[in-house]
């Protein structure tokens, strides 16, 4: 009886299944097949033999991974860039949203929002190209400015020290404004009576922000923090790859760029897949732990 019922329910929605089919096929082909493809990290993959014809080598590539000095360099670089994101980028949208919320002139608020959202829609190629044109040694405005002030020109693009600041400034420039959207929505949902009550009690603007605005958006901050932690190793191939060069490789090479060079450029398919697997796996574990922790502390979590 129950089985019959289930069959009827499925048959009734034939058309719906037909609608889902192309999308489902997409996810199977381009998301789940590659997951299965991770097995090549346990093989000596040869393109012409394919996955089924290549020899199994067990954990060979994983052993190499943990003994390779370059692996530890990219591990360190990835972690450093991640921490910089967390410390220097993460708070910026929160601060911007709080400031925007304090503006009573709606036209001014909209004007600022319109402008700070724009860079989000520019590709990394454009963002990086613009900074290149501005900081280049031959005729870039920044170096010419330094020169005019009688200071030494700085080779921003070809140096170890300037890679990280450039990276994080570009991230902030591109994403800070866009990041305010969620916080602004959360702030808009706060009951205005809370502010009135606190004003009665003599709270000034800072205290209102500290005691009402911030606690009210805490759960949104936590959710976005979890998502950010999940991104720990997703620092953006495109962005870093565009900035990467022979002179800053020591600090700029991260998991994604390494997988690209070792895998596609040098043809070490199996080894670089092992590197990629390690990265994806750590990311998954981190986001799950962050979510678990958030729930422990009485927050909602992402799922």
């Amino acid at each position, binding site marked *: 009886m129950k089985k019959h019922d289930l069959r009827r329910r*499925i048959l009734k929605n034939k058309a719906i299944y037909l609608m889902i089919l192309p999308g489902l096929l997409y996810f199977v082909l381009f998301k789940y097949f590659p997951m299965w493809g*991770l097995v090549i990290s346990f093989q000596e993959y040869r393109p012409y033999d394919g996955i089924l014809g290549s020899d199994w080598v067990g954990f060979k590539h994983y052993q190499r991974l943990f003994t390779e000095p370059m692996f530890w360099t990219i591990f360190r670089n990835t972690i450093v860039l991640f921490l910089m994101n967390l410390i220097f980028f993460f708070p910026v949208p929160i601060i911007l949203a709080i400031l925007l919320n304090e503006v009573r002139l709606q036209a001014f608020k909209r004007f600022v929002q319109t402008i700070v959202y724009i860079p989000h829609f520019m590709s990394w190629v454009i963002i990086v190209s613009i900074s290149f044109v501005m900081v280049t040694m031959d005729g870039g405005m920044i170096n010419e400015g330094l020169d005019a002030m009688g200071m030494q020109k700085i080779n921003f693009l070809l140096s170890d020290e300037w890679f990280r600041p450039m990276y994080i400034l570009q991230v902030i420039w591109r994403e800070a404004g866009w990041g305010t959207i969620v916080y602004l929505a959360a702030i808009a949902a706060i009951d205005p009576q809370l502010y009135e009550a606190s004003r009665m009690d003599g709270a*000034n603007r800072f205290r209102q922000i500290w005691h009402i605005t911030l606690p009210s958006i805490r759960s949104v901050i936590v959710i976005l923090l979890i998502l950010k932690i999940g991104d720990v190793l997703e620092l953006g191939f495109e962005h870093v790859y565009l900035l990467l060069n022979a002179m800053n490789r020591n600090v700029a090479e991260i998991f994604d760029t390494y997988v690209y060079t070792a895998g596609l450029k040098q043809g070490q398919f199996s080894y670089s897949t092992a590197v990629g697997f390690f990265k994806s796996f750590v990311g998954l574990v981190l986001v799950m732990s962050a979510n678990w922790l958030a729930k422990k502390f009485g927050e909602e979590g992402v799922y």
Partner: protein
Amino acid sequence: MVHDKTIGGRLFDGAVYVILFLVALVTILPFLHIIAGSLTTVDELAQKRFVLFPTKISWDAYAYIFSTNTIFRSMLVSIGVTGFGTLFSMILTSLMAYGLSRRDLVGRKQIMFMIVFTMLFSGGMIPTFIVVKSLGMIDSYAALIVPTAINAFNLIILRSFFQSLPDGLEESAKIDGCNDWGILFRIVIPLSMPAIATISLFYAVTYWNTYLPAILYIDSADKWPIQVLLRQIVILASGLTADSSGFSGDFVTPPDQTIKMAVIVVATVPVLLVYPFLQKYFDKGALLGSVKG
């Protein structure tokens, strides 16, 4: 918030306005500098270094980049990929989003989990490359579209939107003899135009900006989208890159600053043109996505 007229309150207000104004200025100045720079003469740029208002508008840089067909061809590739890609993505995404918005669908939860899981874990670059390669897509325009056709985020946003439409609408359409396809195309989609427009624009911007799929899957230079060419002209020309996949065709000597700026502008302008349309919708759309995603 009620106006607060204390001295502290006014100082606070003043500081807020000044800071936000500076933030907006810092965001927009580089773009203005690039646009102005592309319109100045090489000499003026060399003299002043930082130009916001060119004394004499010169279209030389644009004339130069369009005198060869390298840029033109790349633009065509990008326009084509953006047009077909957006259409393809929207068909796949709306069909799937509508199907998954139906509460009576058996297996809906499992499929949703399957989709969300792909946002947390992936096979990575090399296994995906192998799949694309074994499908015979290397060096074809399809490789710029098909492997990234559905964005899980966009799918979830659209599904939430479809779900928020009142159930009664579908029921009454059904009673009037409408089938599932009819409900989707005659009722759900027309009622969801704001969401459809937002997601289409998101897809369009992504396709216009496409870069990674191009360097992974496209070998021949004449199939490069504009973003790849932009990298060749501006970044590779500085002679400091990760790899040395040489310089293409017409730009043998490093181009002048004004020319680099003009190429940046050309690659940016289409996005700036759709931006006003985009802006009308994205507050709602992006919000739904980020909160429920």
